[in-house]
Structure formats: C-alpha cells, structure tokens
C-alpha cells in the first residue's frame, strides 16, 4: 500500500548545472583554506596576518551561508534579520581582541 504510494512519486531528473555550482563553491572553500595554510607558514606573525586570516574567514563564511545555506536567495527581510546581529558580534570579536591587548599593556 504505502509502497505503491512511494512508487508514484515523480522524480525530477538532476540538473547538472546546479550540482556543478555546488562543487564549485566547495572548490573555493578548499582553495581559501589552502591559502590560509600557506600564509600561516610563510608570512611573519603579527597584526597584518591576523587581519588577513579574519578576512579570509569572512570570505569562507560568506560562501557557506550564502550558497550552502541558501541565504543569498531568500527574502531581503530574512537576510537582514540574520546579518545585522551577526555583523555586530563579528565586530565584538575584533573589539575584544583589541581590548585584550589593552589589558595586557596595563598589566605590564
């Protein structure tokens, strides 16, 4: 009974373009990670390197949220409801790293 129901389901054939796009995003994520690796061992440690790493992380986060989680293709109201609080906490991450440096300077 239930099996006949499932057999009546119309399976839509795969759209190669869509699948290709998914793998393209995966390749971008992999390449950015490899770039981060190379930078970790070649560039001198310091504020510039930290900024580059944070920038590349935002790039990766953008591709995951926009394409994998499909947020780019949602309504504007939903996009901004999610993005505004997220931007604020990203700012807080950076702000309290700077604050940590200030605490270190006061202690010493």
């Amino acid at each position, binding site marked *: 009974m239930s099996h006949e*129901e499932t057999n009546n389901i119309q399976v839509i*054939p*795969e759209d190669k373009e869509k699948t290709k796009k998914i793998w393209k995003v*995966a390749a971008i994520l992999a390449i950015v990670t490899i770039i981060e690796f190379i930078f*970790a061992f070649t560039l001198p440690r310091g504020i510039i390197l930290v900024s580059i790493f944070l920038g590349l992380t935002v790039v990766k986060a953008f591709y995951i949220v926009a394409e*994998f*989680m499909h947020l780019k293709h949602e*309504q504007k109201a939903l996009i901004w*409801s999610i993005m505004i609080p997220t931007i604020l906490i990203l700012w807080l991450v950076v702000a309290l790293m700077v604050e940590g440096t200030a605490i270190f300077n006061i202690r010493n």
Partner: protein
Amino acid sequence: MATIVEIDTTTNSRWGGGVAPMNVSYGKLMMWFFLLSDAFSFSALLITYGLIRYSHPAYQGAVSEFEFSTEYWPIPEMVFEALPFLHGVHAPLIFVGIMTFILILSSVTMVLAVEAGHRMDRKAVIKWMLWTIIGGLTFLACQAWEWSHFIHGTAEGTVNAIGETIYGANLTENQYGPPLFASLFFFITGFHGFHVFSGVVINFIVFFNAVVGTYDKRGHYEMVEKTGLYWHFVDLVWVFVFTLFYLI
C-alpha cells in the same frame, strides 16, 4: 453583534497577514533564528578566547626556536603538530587541515542531499545523507584522537614556574602554555564537537526517515533542508574555530 475583522490587503500586503512574509515555512524560519541564538553562544566563547589570548604575553622569539612554557601563550601550530600513526613527525596543523576538509566535504554532501530532496529523489537523498553521516563520524573520531593526544602530552613534558614537570593538559595544568589555553581548548572544541555529535544523530534520524519513505508520503523533503541548515552551521562554526584557535 458579530465583530468583523477586516484585513487591509491593499496596503503592505506582505506583512498584512495570511502569507508567509519571509517566504519560508515556519520550521525553516525557526531553525534560522535558533542558529542565530546558537551563533551568540559560540561567539561568546570565541570572544572570550580572543580577549584572554591577547591579555596574555605572546612568545617573542623565532618560530623555529619555540619551546613550551607556562609563561606565555603558545603558537598553535607548535601545539597541534602530531599525526596518528606517525609518532615524532613534526607536521604542524596538517591533522586539523584534514579535519577541516572532512567537515567541508560533509557539508557539500549535505547540500547535494537537500538538492536531491527538492527533486523528490529518495535514492539520492539516502546516498548523500549516508555520506554526510560518515563525514560527521570521521570528524568526531579525529577530534577524539586530537583530544587524547592533547591530554596525554609530549614525552618530555614542560617544567613550570615552581620546577615541576607537567605532561599534557587538563583543566588545572597545561604543559603547552597557560592553564586557560587548555581550558578554552576543551570548552570551545568540546562545545563544537557536541554540536557535531547531535548533528550526526539528527542526520541519522532524517536518513532513517528517508529510507522508510516518510518524506515521500509527506510529499516534500523539507526536513532534509532544516537539518541541512543545522549541519552547515556546524561547518561554519568550525571555520571560525579553525581561524581563531589554530591559525592566529
């Protein structure tokens, strides 16, 4: 007298009621806002890490001459440099890199499962969900190894300020650096690992439902989309943990 409620559909009809204004179902919208609140929890941990890390002294000398000490914050690539089955080989961040790739790949297979769900392709959903579960379990196994290695420490250990030799790390002492470094490692990767674990459990439930044909009977595969959102979020958090904990 009966009260008649009139909905003004001519002005601002999107928010006037009767339609989903954000054009997503209730379940998906609630998953988005749950993930936003979960992002707050994770960012609280990562913000704490950033604050504590930069209020500790950093290692000043050349990277090649780095030695562990409880006096300064360690360079992460010197802490996480071991590989399973290759004892004594110095392979900085390679294992974490492999873990990152595993998680990104399992995110990709999850998108493919969601895509197959849109097409009502039960067989493809089952296949890709299974790959996603395998990816999640592999990641958890890697993390278990990493924790075990971190807890047991190196054979030489580190001499602390009062002349004791410490081996490995726990919540009170830490051979790699200040005790807070180990505590934050356990809290942040542990909280993330628990998310991966619950994600694997939820993915398995969805996989099981797809196998027995629940979603075909229901007429849509939206449940795959919702768990997909959760799984991508877990991957997203790892991207941030990877940068803030292992690279900086």
